[in-house]
């Protein structure tokens, strides 16, 4: 964007004064953004992993679960807001519901992919060693599916960080409040760009944190990488 630098002197894209004068507002927006994203991804994980396990255990359910999640994923976020806002009002809860629905499909699909990639020999060996269904899930299948689960979590988190901004429609958009607030207060460029850059930075930081978490959770993959 060449015109980033050619902005008029009165309305620059970067303004130190804006940052110095509004630390509370920026911090509040960032806090709300992190809270909404965190809640949404946690709820989506708590719902999505059990649903993926159900699809894994009872294969006939795989099609319906993925199809239902796919239909929910197709419906635009603003429409979901429209469906629930008349009932839930314009609170932060209204923002969390659509975010959960979107993160759900990504988490279910990737968790299921991870579970289905557990080698058949490993499953046979576990059964031969006398593992029950639940024990096999908790000690064999899920640990081996961690890379898949983690991919889903990372995609869901990054997408949710970006999507949280749409919450501005009910006044709880986190950093989206800065972006749209800047646009509406006479196209205040510094506020818009601060919100947008913080949003991208937040997505990057959370993605790296999850990547590091996965690295800690899968010591066997680390050893294999070191040996190779």
């Amino acid at each position, binding site marked *: 964007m060449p015109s980033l630098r050619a902005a008029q002197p009165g309305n620059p894209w970067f303004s130190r004064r804006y940052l110095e004068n509004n630390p509370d507002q920026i911090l509040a927006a960032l806090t709300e953004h992190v809270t909404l994203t965190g809640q949404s991804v946690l709820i989506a994980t708590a719902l999505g992993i059990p649903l993926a396990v159900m699809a894994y255990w009872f294969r006939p359910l795989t099609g319906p679960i993925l199809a239902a999640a796919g239909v929910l994923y197709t419906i*635009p976020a603003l*429409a979901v807001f*429209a469906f629930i806002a008349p*009932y839930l009002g314009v609170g932060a809860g209204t923002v969390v519901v659509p975010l959960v629905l979107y993160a759900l499909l990504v988490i279910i699909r990737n968790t299921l992919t991870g579970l289905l990639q557990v080698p058949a020999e490993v499953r046979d060996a576990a059964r031969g060693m006398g593992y029950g269904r639940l024990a096999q899930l908790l000690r064999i299948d899920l640990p081996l599916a961690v890379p898949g689960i983690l991919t889903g979590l990372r995609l869901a988190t990054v997408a949710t*960080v970006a999507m949280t901004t749409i919450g501005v429609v009910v006044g709880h958009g986190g950093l989206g409040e800065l972006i749209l607030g800047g646009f509406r207060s006479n196209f205040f460029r510094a506020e*818009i760009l601060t919100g947008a850059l913080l949003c*991208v930075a937040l997505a990057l930081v959370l993605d790296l944190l999850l990547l590091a978490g996965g690295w800690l959770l899968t010591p066997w993959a680390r050893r294999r990488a070191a040996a190779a």
Partner: protein
Amino acid sequence: MSQLMSNPVQQAVTWLNDPLNWTNPGGILDRLGEHIALSAGAVALACLVAWPVGLWLGHRGSGGSAIVVLSNVTLAIPVLATLTILPLTAVGFGRPAVIMALAIFAVPPLLATAYTGVREVDPQTREAAVGMGLSGGQLLRRVELPLAVPYLAAGFRTASVQVVATVTLAVFVNGGGLGTIIGAGFGLGMATGGGQILAGGLLVAVLALLVEGGLAVAQRLLTPRAMRRAGRATAPT
């Protein structure tokens, strides 16, 4: 009135049943037209950029990891940011800015599927074509491109459904489209606008599902029977 206020569904049905809400200037039909025009513009622009680049990268067999990086980066950019930033740059206010802001998000799926489509061509087919004396450009046009069509169709479907959904957000920058109905409803407040919000949401959801369904059929028709298991668009791995 209090009965109506307590039931947004009934309010929405009433709102949708008022013919003036369909035909008025700025009514449903106007907004639907804007929505389709913006979506078509954004998808067309994205195809124009992504397909040649994707096919060429696939032909050369390089750049796959760059495409993955691009997809991940665009995933982190809020639509709201491109919608508000682009009008303040040299692009200026108006429809082109909205179309460009939305096209950015349609590029990665189109790029990834074009690349994958060419890469998935059987190497033996490629060798046979080269053996028959086809040049690089002929190979791309006569062999790789036709065989990549099912992938292009899958990417087109993913990108279109995504764009039709995100055009809704153009309401935030007064860009028009069906989202305007929802936005206007929120402006009226929940008590009076609840029905309109719900009705707008319903219209947007139905449009998105229709586009998804219609393009799924089109994708099936464009895919030769033997290749129908290829399924939906996925990023190159």
